């Protein structure tokens, strides 16, 4: 073989170098990302533009369905002039306070109950049926009870948010504890772990993946609880803003409040993702799908 001539057939291009392949792949990824973003913006423009045009040409009744420009103007007006109940930021703050307090209390209670019932078969068998029943009741209805019992202040909204959050977090914490790997538990025990240590160093960490997944959903639920609570009876908050707008047939106001809520929810979602990444940083990173 040492004297063999390497013949390169001119019909075939030489194989690309590794750098060339990497560069091409990177370029393709960038191109794809740009494409995705352009299409996203394009979609938004088409939807909002279509809505605006349809309303302007009276294909849909702007009185009922509002239009993007009116909604934007409403938000601008709220920010500059304040709402009928006071400054907008204050309404946001009130709703956020109810949501966050309700979310925290509900999440802590849900995690605690999930861990206890997940570890104790008897308690789980006894209580699981009641939790199923309680979960199937439309819990928003409880809001009326809370407003009657706890008044128009913050307590009734927090209570509703707690009830909304509890079951979601509980369900996931319970499942997470149940799914804890029996081998890992046996390993920890043989390595010398006490029951408490097994709980802290095996059961809780393995349930944490499930719990953090539930926090995303349940924060949204807490927000629903707070807003619906305000809707049912309150003196402040975004829910009341929506109720007032509804009462004055101000469709743009309803949409505007909705958008403010959405922005708040997105920020919260972002913060929860940060928290999740901190808590479960041991998980394998998702491999980037390059489309090859």
């Amino acid at each position, binding site marked *: 073989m040492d004297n063999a001539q390497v013949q390169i057939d001119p019909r075939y291009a030489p194989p690309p170098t590794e750098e060339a392949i990497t560069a091409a792949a990177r370029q393709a990824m960038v191109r794809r990302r740009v494409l995705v973003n352009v299409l996203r913006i394009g979609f938004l423009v088409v939807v909002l533009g279509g809505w605006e045009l349809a309303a302007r040409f009276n294909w849909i009744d702007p009185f009922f369905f509002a239009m993007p420009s009116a909604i934007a103007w409403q938000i601008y007006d709220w920010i500059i002039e304040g709402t009928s109940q006071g400054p907008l930021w204050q309404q946001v703050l009130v709703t956020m306070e109810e949501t966050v307090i309700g979310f925290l209390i509900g999440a802590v209670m849900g995690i605690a109950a999930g861990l206890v019932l997940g570890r104790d078969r008897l308690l789980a068998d006894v209580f699981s049926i009641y939790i199923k029943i309680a979960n199937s009741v439309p819990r928003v209805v409880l809001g009326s009870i809370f407003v009657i019992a706890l008044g128009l202040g913050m307590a009734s909204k927090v209570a509703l948010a707690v009830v909304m959050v509890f079951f979601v977090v509980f369900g996931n914490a319970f499942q997470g504890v149940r799914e804890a790997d029996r*081998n890992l538990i046996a*390993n920890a025990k*043989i*390595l010398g*772990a006490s029951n408490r240590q097994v709980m802290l*160093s*095996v059961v809780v*960490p393995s349930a944490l993946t499930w719990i953090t997944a539930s926090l995303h959903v349940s924060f949204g639920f807490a927000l629903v609880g707070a807003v619906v609570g305000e809707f049912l009876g309150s003196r402040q908050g975004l829910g009341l803003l929506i109720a007032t707008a509804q009462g004055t047939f101000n469709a743009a106001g309803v949409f505007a409040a909705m958008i403010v809520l959405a922005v708040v929810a997105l920020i919260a979602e972002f913060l929860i993702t940060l928290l999740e990444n901190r808590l479960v940083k041991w998980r394998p990173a998702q491999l980037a799908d390059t489309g090859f």
Partner: protein
Amino acid sequence: MVAVMTSAAPGLAPDDRPIAIELQDVQRRFVTPDGQALTALRSFNLTVRRGEFCAVVGPTGCGKSTTLTLIAGLAAPTAGAVRIMGQPVNGIDQRVGFVFQQDAVFPWKTVLDNVVAGPLFRGKPREAAYANARDWVKRVGLSGFEGHYPHQLSGGMRKRVALAQTFINEPEILLMDEPFSALDVQTRVLMQDELLKLWSAQSASVVFVTHDLEEAIALADRVFVLTAGPATVKSVYDIDLPRPRVTAEIRYDPHFTEISKMIWNDLRDEVLLSYQRAQRGE
């Protein structure tokens, strides 16, 4: 029960060492989730002397692992006695180490935190525990990987973590449940040598469960052959291959082949029986 004993080679330690593990007339029954009783072990007798490396081979699903859970104190026998160091097993004993078949390292702990887990669970002072753990990470050849999470390691490296995690507790009794069965053949041989090296430094009494007869012969002083389930000890073989052994090379020793043939003759019937039962869907 037929007990076939090959003559002990003159170089081996005389068997007057104290008994470390003893299973006496043990029976173990399970109740399946649909309420059926299932016997895994019947009139099971096994003794392991201090510092002895015993391998247990038998057909798949015959109840090999059950013996380990009994010795570890993870489960109790339905009848009979299980003793370690002369005392009846009553729950998990601090002197026992266990290496599992599947990955049992904690995925949320780094390599170092995995290795240090045992000493910390047992209430050793933090600083000493970490120093010891660093030493063990080095000893199993994982220097530089202290801060890695298990998912960032290969299967063989995770096994090394598991070995360090177990050996750091300096177990007097080491139970291993097909620990290398998930590894590729080359890695498996490397890990076998690693295990022998670690074991000869501590000389724990080992019960090594495997379905791989060659692995059993390469590693052990004695091989127990089990019957198809419900398992009992069919025969015991002394392996008089000299130590220290290099598992990658010992396979080509003519005496190794001889022993292997002899034990396989014995094991084959049980494997066939177990296979036929599986075919019939029992």
